[in-house]
């Protein structure tokens, strides 16, 4: 088990290095430069030169990358040209905001997705199965941006139930904070929830055909016990895999959702940074997101070992 974890950590470090190098090179290969974008078209060559030097953009790309990596090891994530602030504190402020949207979305997606998937599988071929499967297909197909706009139209502008946009920390105003979170969390959870539903249904249908399920039923166990104690536990492996994969999707979704609902998280910061060619912020947020995804996948791999003794035995 320890060997498995060490090997996966090693792989993650290599992936992180390659991802950040690639992003760095791509950002620098794009036309234009962040200084003239920041200063605007009225900037004089003298001004551009002044800022280019101040931010170190006059140095070779690989030297800049080297400095960034070195800074990272010393806890210095660089300075943002678009925000005119150190990236570390900026990122720290926004991580919590993003988590307050993604975490509930993830939990809701997993819990509701599994429950609906189980209901669909247990009622295979019946009306409940058809309804849930159809809804899951819709959930996967519709663009979240469109759903988001639709919800704003109905819940905010027509019904006046929820605010259009914004973020209020729950510690500041719990009720308003919750109201502002409802739409973004639901929209963000929609796609993953549909995926979990379909995956659970499919895995459950496969497992319930197995001999040991027939044996359990023939022993006279209650159907509830068969489903929860035997079928669901064995159907969890592909669902855990999907959980790991959905983290990346959720974080990607936050870029859109945070823009739409004006949530000051990592996603909206990355969007602003990309628009402004703010190298440091893009680099640091990509690093952060890649690290989160890598850690989540590591956790998934470790979880496999606990859920499935065969994997533990293999390693």
């Amino acid at each position, binding site marked *: 088990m320890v060997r498995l974890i060490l090997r996966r950590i090693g792989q993650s470090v290599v992936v992180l290095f390659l991802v950040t190098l690639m992003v760095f090179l791509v950002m620098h290969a794009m036309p234009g*430069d962040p200084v*003239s*974008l920041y200063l*605007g078209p009225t900037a*004089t060559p003298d*001004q551009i030169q002044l800022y280019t030097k101040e931010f170190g953009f006059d140095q070779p790309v690989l030297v800049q990358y080297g400095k960034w990596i070195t800074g990272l090891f010393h806890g210095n994530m660089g300075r943002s040209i678009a*925000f*005119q602030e150190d990236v570390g504190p900026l990122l720290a402020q926004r991580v919590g905001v993003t988590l307050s949207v993604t975490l509930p979305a993830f939990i809701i997606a997993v819990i509701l997705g599994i429950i609906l998937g189980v209901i669909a599988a247990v009622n295979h071929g019946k009306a409940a199965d058809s309804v849930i499967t159809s809804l899951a297909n819709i959930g996967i197909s519709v663009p979240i941006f469109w759903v988001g706009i639709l919800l704003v139209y109905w819940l905010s502008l027509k019904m006046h139930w929820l605010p259009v946009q914004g973020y209020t920390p729950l510690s500041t105003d719990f009720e308003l904070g919750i109201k502002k979170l409802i739409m973004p969390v639901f929209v963000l959870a929609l796609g993953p929830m549909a995926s979990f539903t379909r995956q659970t249904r499919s895995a459950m249908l496969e497992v319930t055909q197995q001999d040991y399920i027939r044996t359990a039923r023939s022993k006279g166990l209650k159907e509830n016990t068969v489903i929860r104690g035997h079928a669901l536990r064995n159907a969890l492996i592909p669902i855990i895999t999907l959980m790991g994969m959905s983290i990346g999707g959720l974080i990607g979704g936050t870029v859109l959702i945070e*823009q739409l609902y004006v949530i*000051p998280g990592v996603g909206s910061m990355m969007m602003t940074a990309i628009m402004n060619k703010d190298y440091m912020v893009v680099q640091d947020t990509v690093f952060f997101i890649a690290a989160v995804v890598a850690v989540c996948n590591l956790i998934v791999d470790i979880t496999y070992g606990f859920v499935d003794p065969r994997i533990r035995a293999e390693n």
Partner: protein
Amino acid sequence: MSKKRTHFSALVLSALVALTSMTATACSSNGGTASSKAAASATSSQAAAKPKSGGTLKIATGQTQAVLGYTPKITANAATMYLRLNFDSLLFYDDKGNLTADLAEKWETSPSDKTLTFHLRDGVKFSDGTDFNSEAVKWNIEQYQAAKRTETANIESVETPDAKTAVFHLKTWDSSALTSIGYFVYYMSPTAVKAHDATWAESNPVGTGPFVLTDWQKGVSMKYAKNTKYWRSGEPYLDGINVTVISDVMTLESTLQSGEADMIPYCDITNLKDLAGNSSYVRETNTNGVGVEGWGLIPNSSDPKSPFSNVKVRQAMCYAIDNEKIVKAVGYGYMKTTNQWAAPGASTYNKDVQGYPYNPTKAKQLLTEAGYPNGFDTKIYTLSSGYYADAITAASQELTEVGIRAKPEVTDATKYNSMMANGCDGIMLHFNSISPDLGLYMGRHLDPTGAFYAKMIQHPQDALDLLSQIRSAVNEKAKTDYSMQLQKMIYDQYALFGKPMGVQTINTMKATYVMDDNFHKVNAAAWTPWSTWLNK
């Protein structure tokens, strides 16, 4: 779209400068009351009621800002909205586009001595309680010069004979100097900045303006409270202003509709279209042509190998495009057309300029005369955002019909900015601040060392001579006369800047109860937050 517009709106920054210009007779004197009511009166047809104090104005905007406090570092046009909350300049504008008193009570200009003398208002304090005086003026100018700001590049020195007088000695006399120095320098508290440093000042504005910044989440929101030490008696009326930065235009619109915001300054044209006809909102726009942005198509005439180095080809290009039709289609009726470096009705709009009304037959004839009977291939560069791409696509089709096979090439803003400075190999989208001050604004394009598009155009000596005469003019009449001549020469004789297409007005959409904010009224990027009040 809104983001791209931010980059280009910096062009408009330049255009803020004004009509006015030089009241500079040999050594004339001016004065004025700085009452906000003077500026406000022009615009407050809705505001027959007496202003009420109190309330918080909620602004939703796509215009964000990285620096709010260290003014030499603030260059973008969008920033003017924020700058006016915390800071003042020596001069402001009235609704006719004339410079009026602000922190300076009166001023004198002397072309022969190359000096500008400002007499400062008494009793003005920065929000930290320190005095605004001539030493503060001098110190601020030094900060602007250290930041390489063009507005202060022509200042040789600042003399401070007493606490209330600042004399600016210029390197050369320039008819635009009063506007550059009087309007574009915003005064920070030297005490506050010196007590910390410029980096601290970036996030902590300390000026003489009507509000103080109380909370700022960068790229997200700002909160302002009334400056209790403000120098205009009884103002500001509002207790505070909350700004929310929203980059998505749909969300911006919904925020206004839901009542979560009272106004959207620099409103996107799609929002205007959607909200038009709704009696709950009022559209504000510039009416005197000062500070507005023009756009058109500029060809590369500097390269001798380019077909556009021949004036007949440039004229053919102009005749081939039906800008009336294109501007109407992309501007939803919110955009005017022009045929020169001015909005119709502006003081330097020359009615004698013929321009190039749509005439494809004439275009083909000119191409044949120029030696291109079968036309030629070229490129036409545009931005990916908004209506520009649509307009250029339409223009490219019309050009192709006469034989100028211009293939549209879409670029991002950074590449476009680079092309503005270094030129391109075909035709490109042309942005220009069509302020009446041609010496300042057209000069940035026409001068061989100009910052914008200068490397891709020819620089005829007679045009440069006229430009020089505009700059050295000692009175307004001479300046306007030379400007009229230059308009005619540049457009009818040389077609140097190609085809002017539209005059883009800048708009604000607001709830009807927001009064006397004067957004865009005196010039396109200015407003008067001190006189703003809520009639509800």
